[in-house]
């Protein structure tokens, strides 16, 4: 038996090109929330022309034919699309395991009933924090009560419930009460996802990056709950890579197991890749998914090892982390083919250390940070 499919799982097979086990369908960039760490591109407001229902149906069918088993309906807020239940039914009929990834805004009794009848397999709801005040301040809108209600509705229908909380300086000291909230709501799975610094999170990094002491305390708390709840609630703790010496094996490697389709049909090997310069990402309106996955230059650009530069090219660890995250390499070193600067062997590692040092100073009260920039269409049109 081997485990594969989730972006973090080990799924590197002997085949020259693997299968996209995991399809992320970003149905829309529209969202009522404004999370300052949103992984949507900064430029989201400039990408119009969402795929139609029938275009999505074709993409979903083509992906299933490639062997994809997991499908995440995401965004933005996927509930904004009123064809969501039709897409769920289509995917479920093809044998997909279907996951709804939502802020819960719009998930009332009637809508959940329609989505459940369509055959949704699991529901993931995001929380921004464990208190109403902080949750709504981070989300930039009143949403806490509606999230609570939606989580209870999902449990009442006996659907698997995942709660996902993006962790950053503003809520990391609440981890214990966040986990208590997850227990109270009866979550089956909990993802404590440390903020990854691209997209809006990179823009707001000085406001979001926690200190080393905060990270150590949070890790200890998460591990304590993991042990205590083994067998009833599975807790995934995504470590904050800025505080590590080695990068994560991003998406199990470029174009290895993960395929994201942006609202306008742009196909991406990682949902943050859209902003990498010099790569022409293919669009499902022009090409089949088979051609995109196997033959497009963008999906082949960082496959395997031949693209690597030093220190990765001759590094004994390169099969373990594939040189880390291409988006982070570009954001922090200016070249997507460089080692991820999180790696202590990277000549650009100093940039990560400097960001952590600023976080240390702010935690000690000696460095102020400006307020964060919310993710919304007005800011999207002006920040870059």
């Amino acid at each position, binding site marked *: 038996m081997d485990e594969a499919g*989730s972006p973090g799982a080990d799924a590197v097979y002997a085949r020259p090109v693997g299968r996209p086990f995991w399809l992320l369908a970003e149905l829309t960039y529209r969202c009522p929330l404004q999370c300052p760490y949103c992984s949507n591109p900064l430029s989201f407001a400039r990408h119009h022309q969402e795929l139609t229902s029938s275009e999505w149906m074709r993409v979903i069918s083509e992906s299933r034919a490639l*062997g994809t088993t*997991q499908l995440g309906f995401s965004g933005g807020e996927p509930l904004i699309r009123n064809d969501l239940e039709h897409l769920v039914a289509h995917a479920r009929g093809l044998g997909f395991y279907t996951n709804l990834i939502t802020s819960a805004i719009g998930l009332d009794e009637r809508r959940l009933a329609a989505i459940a009848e369509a055959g949704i*397999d699991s529901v993931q709801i995001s929380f921004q924090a464990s208190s109403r005040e902080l949750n709504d301040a981070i989300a930039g809108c009143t949403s806490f009560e509606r999230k609570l209600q939606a989580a209870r509705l999902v449990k009442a229908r006996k659907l698997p419930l995942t709660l996902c909380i993006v962790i950053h300086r503003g809520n990391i000291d609440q981890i214990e009460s966040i986990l208590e909230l997850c227990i109270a709501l009866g979550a089956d799975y909990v993802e404590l996802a440390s903020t990854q610094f691209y997209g809006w999170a990179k823009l707001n990094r000085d406001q979001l990056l926690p200190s080393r002491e905060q990270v150590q305390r949070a890790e200890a708390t998460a591990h304590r709950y993991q042990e205590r709840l083994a067998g009833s609630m599975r807790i995934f703790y995504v470590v904050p890579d800025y505080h590590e010496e080695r990068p994560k094996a991003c998406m199990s490697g470029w174009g290895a197991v993960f395929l994201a389709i942006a609202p306008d049909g742009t196909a991406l090997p990682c949902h943050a890749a859209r902003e990498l310069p010099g790569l022409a990402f293919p669009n499902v309106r022009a090409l089949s998914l088979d051609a995109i996955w196997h033959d497009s230059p963008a999906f082949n650009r960082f496959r395997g090892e031949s693209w690597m530069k030093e220190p990765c090219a001759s590094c004994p660890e390169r099969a373990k982390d594939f040189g880390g995250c291409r988006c982070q390499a570009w954001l922090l070193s200016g070249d997507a083919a460089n080692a991820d600067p999180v790696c202590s062997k990277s000549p650009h590692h100093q940039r990560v250390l400097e960001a952590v040092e600023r976080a240390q100073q702010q935690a000690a009260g000696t460095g102020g940070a400006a307020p964060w920039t919310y993710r919304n269409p007005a800011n999207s049109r002006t920040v870059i």
Partner: protein
Amino acid sequence: MNDACQGAEGIISLGHSVRFQFEPAQQAHVLLYPEGMIRLNDSAAEILKYCDGTRTAAGIIAELKRRFPDADLTAHVHEFLETAHGRGWIARS
């Protein structure tokens, strides 16, 4: 009938969030759960076929013995069911 399953009686079904299916593209059975997948070998798949909410461990072994009369599989099945239960692939009620 079997001491090894005394502590493990009860009807066995698939875990709450788990789906078991054959994947043509992989020519293998898999277990699917939120955001993940386990690719199963043949013997795991044979056992899981009978974890359908109608049988105890003893009932599953009886079915497998009917199908594979020459195999000595009791210990192997119990071991697998323990692992599967620990990972949430199956539930006992």
